[in-house]
């Protein structure tokens, strides 16, 4: 996967995006109706300059990132704990597993009315949504990872007469780490998207989601697009950063 990509190959990879962009620009000038959603590049560019100069984009982005990090932290810690409990205790799994798996199938958006009713429509509600988005994948992957510790390792562990606690720390947890990182990767993606969603759902305040909502209300489609591009780019960037971090941290693993 880390194989170096040659320059000609990179250019080949850009062929389809370039074609899509050309198609976009064609659609933009095709008719006024199409121009509504397929905003011409020149207009997007002007919007980007305006969003950066008026200082709207960066503070909003910062607020969303901070919110995502907080939610990610809460959700991951709880997810690790919950995943650990469910994996280590069959009883806990049997008792709480059904509820957990059923609850995680309820779309986060669908909770909005109840969250609004119980926790209000401001910051706690947003944090709750983001934390939940992070909690589910971390729990699932922690659970899977701890379960998948290979039995020969465990046999070895019992040979050395490790206590259950030592077994957990020295055998199961290290074996589970790659899974946990996969969970964190998913959590990051979901937390980021749901941060934007939560900002659109629950009251205004700084945030890229709020910015997008205001732009939508005022039909500034170029600003909407800039928000979408920013959201996608940030998602990719954070994903990359986490992959790199995981690769470094797990180097001993192979």
């Amino acid at each position, binding site marked *: 996967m880390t194989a170096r990509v040659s320059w000609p190959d990179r250019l080949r990879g850009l062929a389809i995006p370039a074609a899509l962009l050309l198609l976009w620009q064609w659609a933009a000038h095709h008719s006024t109706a199409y121009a509504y959603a397929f905003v011409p590049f020149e207009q997007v560019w002007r919007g980007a300059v305006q969003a950066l100069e008026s200082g709207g984009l960066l503070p909003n982005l910062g607020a969303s990132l901070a919110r995502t990090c907080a939610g990610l932290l809460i959700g991951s810690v709880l997810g690790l704990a919950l995943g650990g409990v469910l994996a280590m205790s069959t009883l806990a799994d049997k008792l709480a597993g*059904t509820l957990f*798996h059923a609850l995680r199938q*309820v779309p986060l958006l669908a909770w909005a009315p109840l969250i609004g009713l119980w926790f209000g429509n401001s910051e706690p509600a947003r944090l709750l949504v983001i934390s939940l988005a992070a909690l589910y994948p971390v729990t699932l992957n922690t659970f899977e990872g701890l379960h998948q510790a290979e039995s020969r390792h465990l046999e070895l562990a019992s040979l050395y007469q490790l206590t259950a606690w030592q077994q957990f720390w020295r055998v199961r947890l290290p074996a589970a780490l790659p899974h946990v990182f996969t969970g964190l990767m998913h959590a990051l993606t979901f937390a980021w998207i749901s941060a934007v969603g939560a900002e659109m759902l629950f009251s205004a305040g700084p945030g890229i989601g709020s910015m997008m909502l205001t732009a939508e209300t005022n039909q500034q489609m170029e600003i909407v697009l800039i928000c979408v591009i920013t959201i996608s780019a940030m998602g990719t960037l954070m994903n990359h950063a986490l992959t790199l971090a995981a690769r470094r941290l797990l180097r001993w693993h192979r």
Partner: protein
Amino acid sequence: MSLSLPLPLRGPHWRRVLAHPAFLLVSPLALLALWQAACNSGAVSPQLLVPPLQVWRTALSLAASGDLWLNLSASLYRLAVGFVSGTVLGLLVGALLGTSPRFVVWVGPTFNVLRQVPGIALVPALILLLGVGEAFKIVLVGKAVFFSVALATSESIRAVSGRWSEVGTLYRLSRWQQLRHIALPASLSPVLTGMRIGLNRAWMVLVATELIASESGLGQMMEMARQMFQMDVVMVGIVLTGVIGFGLDRGLRLVQRMLLQRQGGQQ
């Protein structure tokens, strides 16, 4: 309600008790009991927490009036069409990404960028291209499934072919034979996991889409109920989406287990 537990938790008897399917119902029932108790205590106003019995009655009356079936069938239809088309396309593109380096060079970057674009942001463009009918909702659902399946397929094929290609070369299998006899069977399980993740995401996206633009569907039912402050209907929707999502996930998991068992039997 008291739960008396046999003390030696690790005994075989205890295992047998735990394995009983009825045990799966303990946590939902406990939640139900807690919910009812909170309502009975009078500490929570019924506007904030609708009693379970009332939710049940609302569900019955929604079912009797036919509203529930209308919304449910609309949602499930969109999910089914979106899921099947997304899975088929995802398998195809995933297999290509997993087997053909040339395809990766040309399509890979586009794939990775589009994967990051939130589907909801595409709504205006999709409406312009496809109108406000069923098509754009199905495309959004399909997109959610497509990327999960394609990613799982390509990654598992790549992982498998790395490990098994030596065996394949040893037995002088052609590339197609390698794919047919080694890569595909071995990647079945991760692909099914990808499908399960895709189904879960599709269900989420569908409800979100129905909130934004729809005349029918579970998401629409909940959105209208929220506007009209009918929290009982909202609760019916939440319970239903949870139960259906859980059921679909379990169903796919069952299929996964059956396929793997059959595979195990053949080898």
